[in-house]
């Protein structure tokens, strides 16, 4: 019963969503709408679970005087300040939470992402080598697309943008489409396995 009930719930929920997809305005659709509202509520609780989990992990590091305890302490302070300001003073424009986010967190995250440009440039110089025929093809394609996609490209050779477009819309898209179809088939088969109770690893057992 301990495993049959979750499998039954998964089967009913999955089958309901599949049927609702093809039958708008039916009773099944109405029931699935209710299930979707429940899903957003469950989603909210899962966020809470994540917050509690991260707080516990880092509190443990501080309490046991782990060598990284100062980083954990920093995380906990930020966690309490951001969380507390949001819960007690609101999250709308002009609130403390919003100011902390707009003035500190967003610029820091953008900065971290921007630093990637330096690493990419360094890696391009050191690691992007035409060691084999396939890597040479990749390298030539990358150079053509990069040149074709910037304004300077057309000054070097007026046909470069159309070459870049061809690479993007023919060979690159063929590969992308193959990956998309493969991933969709994989997701569909995995979903079917879960709905039919063949895949049960989500229950915590192999």
């Amino acid at each position, binding site marked *: 019963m301990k495993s049959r009930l979750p499998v039954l719930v998964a089967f009913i929920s999955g089958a309901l969503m599949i049927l609702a997809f093809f039958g708008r305005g039916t009773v099944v659709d109405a029931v*699935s709408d209710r299930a979707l509202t429940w899903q*957003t509520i469950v989603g909210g609780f899962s*966020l809470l679970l994540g917050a509690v989990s991260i707080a516990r992990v880092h509190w443990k590091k501080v309490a046991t005087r782990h060598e990284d305890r100062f980083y954990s302490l920093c995380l906990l302070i930020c966690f309490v300040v951001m969380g507390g300001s949001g819960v007690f003073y609101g999250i709308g*424009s002009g609130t403390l939470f919003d100011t902390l986010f707009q003035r500190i*967190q967003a610029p820091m995250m*953008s900065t971290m992402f*921007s630093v990637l440009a330096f690493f990419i440039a360094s890696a391009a110089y050191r690691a992007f080598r*035409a060691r084999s025929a396939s890597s040479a093809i990749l390298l030539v394609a990358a150079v053509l697309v990069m040149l074709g*996609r910037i304004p300077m490209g057309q000054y070097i050779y007026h046909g470069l*943008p159309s070459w870049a477009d061809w690479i993007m819309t023919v060979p690159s898209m063929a590969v992308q489409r193959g990956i998309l179809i493969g991933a969709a088939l994989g997701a569909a088969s995995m979903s079917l396995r879960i709905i039919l109770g063949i895949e049960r690893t989500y229950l915590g057992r192999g």
Partner: protein
Amino acid sequence: MNGTAMGISGKSFWERLQGVDRRILYTLIFASVIIPILWPLHLPTPVTPESRAFFNAVDSLPSGSVVLFPFDFWPSTLPETEPMAVAGLRHCFRKNLRVVGLSNVGMGGPSIADRLLDSIGAEFHKTYGVDYVNLGYKANYSAVLLGMGSKIADIFPTDHRGTRLDSIPLMRQVPNYDSVKFVLIVSDNAMTDYWVALVNARYGLPMVAGVTAIMAPKMLSYIQSHQLLGLLGGMKGAAEYEQLIEHSDKASRGMDAQSLIHFLIIAFIILGNFGFFMLRREQSQKGQN
């Protein structure tokens, strides 16, 4: 010397070129970003067919149409995504379209949406609740995207500011997707795929997307299948859109720097490979001797 200039360290020129100090590379990158910001080059940005299609799709909407505007991006990609969102909002408000903003990115999405909607709305003297609204964030994107098709108020009982939807004039006229004319997605993650798969496929809502440059090649397949009507790819796409709406802003200014950086990276690749082949030739000659 083996026919090659040897340095004091005993390393050949090609060996030293391979191991060039990364601080030199970083300095060159830094200069390539700063110089065009201080002294703009005003390089022209040719408009791609995908960006023009994006512009035409928004431009052809009748005045007063409701546009769903997901701000599905993280703060980390703001330099790329914010110019797209700003240009998109300017275009919508200029056309007198009514904008319903929301976000499927919990960390920061609703705050960014609030800031951009308020600032661009003020530029066009638009009123919150009448011309635009921010629904905020709800967890579990698949339930959100599908649930809004039946009743938006079931998923978002209140907007981001805590006001009940039934007391917001705009939302009283938008109970579900049937009242939405168009979706304008700005995203830096897989949310565009979900909008296409769950909303375009099931409800047939026409949509366009502005995505980061790294995501654009994947999204082109949705353009070819007409599931997306138009696409903006990265800062270049945003710069093209700014050009089309005739309002130059951050993306147009950033394109000079991006052009130089691309050029520099290509130069690094060519120089690195040239050095690599010369070193290999030198080593094979040494081996023969």
